[in-house]
């Protein structure tokens, strides 16, 4: 069976990548296995859990619900692009560490990307707004409370 490959050119965390891929290749698999950026996690492959959330042209999207070819010409951001350098975390990541906003850490990359976009839009959110924004991401370890605290802390520190 010969499948025609399609060219994908995309920018991920500021770096340009070009690959020839099968049209059916999921964006999540492209990012993880073609580009080797395994910080983006796959939790459900049906768009519910939010673990694979990345930013596509600045907007949070589920990498498991997109094909790689749909990212052609777009700028993607993944968790690997958050920290400015290896030994320095992004303030949002720092707040997650300080507030114990993660346990196993599997859902965390998707939550960080979702909350980054949220805080970019709403710099001064209340708890109800944070919970609403967080409600599309599932976490099975924390009970969310410390995640909410972490997002609040990050917002406070940014003021």
């Amino acid at each position, binding site marked *: 069976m010969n499948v025609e490959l399609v060219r994908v050119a995309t920018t991920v965390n500021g770096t340009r990548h070009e690959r020839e891929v099968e049209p059916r290749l999921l964006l999540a698999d492209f990012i993880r296995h073609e580009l080797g950026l395994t910080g983006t996690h796959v939790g459900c492959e049906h768009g519910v859990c939010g673990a694979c959330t990345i930013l596509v042209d600045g907007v949070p999207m589920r990498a498991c619900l997109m094909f790689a070819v749909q990212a052609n010409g777009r700028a993607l951001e993944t968790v690997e692009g958050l920290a400015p350098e290896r030994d320095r975390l992004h303030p949002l990541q720092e707040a997650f560490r300080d507030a114990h906003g993660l346990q196993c850490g*599997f859902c965390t990359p998707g939550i960080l990307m979702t909350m980054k976009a949220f805080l970019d839009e709403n710099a001064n959110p209340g708890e109800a707004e944070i919970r609403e924004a967080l409600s599309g991401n599932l976490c099975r370890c924390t009970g969310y409370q410390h995640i909410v605290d972490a997002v609040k802390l990050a917002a406070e520190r940014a003021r």
Partner: protein
Amino acid sequence: MTTRQFGASVKRNEDARLLAGRAQFVDDVKLPGILHAAFVRSPHAHARIVAIDVTAALARDGVVAVYTAEDLGDYWRPGPVIVPPPPVEGALFNERTQVPLAKGKARHVGEPVALVIATSRYIAEDAAADVTVEWDPLPVAGDLEPAAAPGAPRVHEDLPDNVAARVRQSKGDYAAAATRAHRTVKRRFAYDHGCAQPMETRGVVAQWDAGAERLTVWDTTQAPIAIRNGLAAMLGLSERQVRVVAPFIGGGFGPKIMLFYPDEVLIPWAALKLGRPVKWIEDRAEHFFATTHERGQIHDAEIVLDRDGRILGVKDVFLHDTGAYDPYGLTVPINSQCTLLGPYVIPNYDSTFTAVFTNKPIVTPYRGAGRQHGVFVIERLLDIAARELDIDRAEIRRRNLIPPDAFPYDNQIIYQDFTRLGYDSGDYAPMLAKALDMIGYERFLREEQPRLRAQGKRVGIGVVCYVEGTGIGPYEGAKVQVQTSGTVSLLTGIGTQGQGHFTSFAQIVADQVGVAVSDVEVITGDTDQFYWGAGTFASRGAVVAGNAVNEAALAVRKKILRVASEHFECAEADLVIEDGAVSIAGVPGRRIKLGELAVQANPMRGAVAPGTEPGLEATRYFGPESGATAAGVHAMIVEVDPETMIPSIQKYVVVHDCGTVINPMIVAGQVLGGVAQGIGNAFYEQLAFDAEGQLLNATLADYLLPTALDVPRIELGHTVTPSPLNPLGIKGVGEAGAIPVGPLFAQALEDALELPAKGRELNEIPLSPCRLWELAGSPG
């Protein structure tokens, strides 16, 4: 003097890697030439396999191999019993464990029938769809009660019926106690299936290095050492030829120990056979069938009380759904049987359970591991008894609590760890009082509830108590070593699934060895690094491994002092270890860094005194004589919308006693996460099977995990009664939050909807808006 790290909310060592996306999970393992696996699974709950045709699959480009049970030869054999039945007199246990690939017939939906290996996951899944299986469907033993009835379709045809186990345990004389009863309450309670759903599904990667003759397996397991031992035995390798790595694991909660899942048996075998690395990552749809479930039980229970509401005795007869196989022995139903006794004085107890095979996925422990059911039964019985005796719900509990001078308390029956069920220490009444105070119990009932009800609001309150047996044996070990860099390594066999072992264990070491927590490098879950251990389960990590870590760190401290006293030619008593160095008290300038001392402790030439061990290193093991008993009280105020039957939690408090606390921040996280799972279990999560054993809601869009909008802010209170069973005084905390939420929901919702006045009760879990509507009758 440096600050003591033990007991402080130290930030976690592991977080930077996890937050930056650098932490390696099993699916992140990348190997050259890796092949990918997919399984063909049974679409039927119970069906005979007439024929399997793999020719089309094999013909597909990129397919390397397709295996069925026939291809496995002698390697095909049922798995071991993970936990043999405890020595209860007269106990019946029929061992029927899971097989690598179904042979002859499939016993539950999703049971694997064939394994496909291909050059990509996409091709492997295509080829799995190419495999055709001719099925002859059989009558299904689906629901628990019909499956237990005479004449039911048999899951294992070599047995006369579907009885997997039957165990009776008793203390005192229930029948005699019943004759003295002022009041008897008798009810049926049901607790339906749910599952753990860690955000990371399971997965296995295996690589055979033919040159080194070594097998490496990355596995999402909670018990890498047991997997190593078992794989070596099955594959005819020595244990030293097999390395099992449980790297970062994305949540476990129990089902990630199975010893062995079919995939854990097959993927390493395929890697050896093909001479190429093989990866299998479970997808979420598979997870609903390929990973174990929990919960299904039906209890017929009665309680007898005196005039003052003091418990004279409890009798309970229950059915436990073990699914198609019973590899976990009696662990779950024994926990239900034991944990029913709770924090209460129950002088007479008579409990019999029958575990039943059904054509459903396998039931093994999930966070709480059967304790939920026992707590549900006793708490509901007390609620109903309180009402019938016209005693306040909190008061009837207070009257029955085990008094502080009764510890150690002997419950006289056998627990899951084969020892007599005893409570090591506790002081329950202050916990109850604290929880009632925090929730504002009196004021709510006296002022707020009448006021809110007058406004038409459906508000209710609940309060429940529980104990949790934690920290059971047999043992764990730890190796502490000062490295020449001055950092300290800590190796232990126990793996981590998010509990913060990289930090809490490091805190113990930091205090003993005088270094910063961030200078302790904790390595867990790699059998090449630490050989011995049992695994992460039963809220035992901090208790059992934590104490082993403490012993090893103490031994290293002694070595440091001895070597330093030789170096300085002074008495050990004059030495101070802090900030990564040893100095002589009161003598400025006389100081040596631990790294330099480690170099000195490993001489490369010359002679040493007989008996000298090199390095600043020690390995120690710890095994408690029995488990430590944690306890807690949860209380909740809830409002229910009578039209949608959707509850809104107004206030939720937890008062918890897990003995001495290593890291309060991590303990809080454990409790909060447990409550969230408990809320899911109580109201959102139910595995809905039809009578044919088909699971009707096998997606996360249909099986609803609680979101940030469903879990309220939770207030925590702590009390501390240290465990006398281990030097650090620790009790486990991993499961506590999840255990009592079911009866709390039932009690508070009943109160909110004033169901008792309508003669209605909530005697089943999980509830849901629909089910609550049905059970509550008309909303009026």
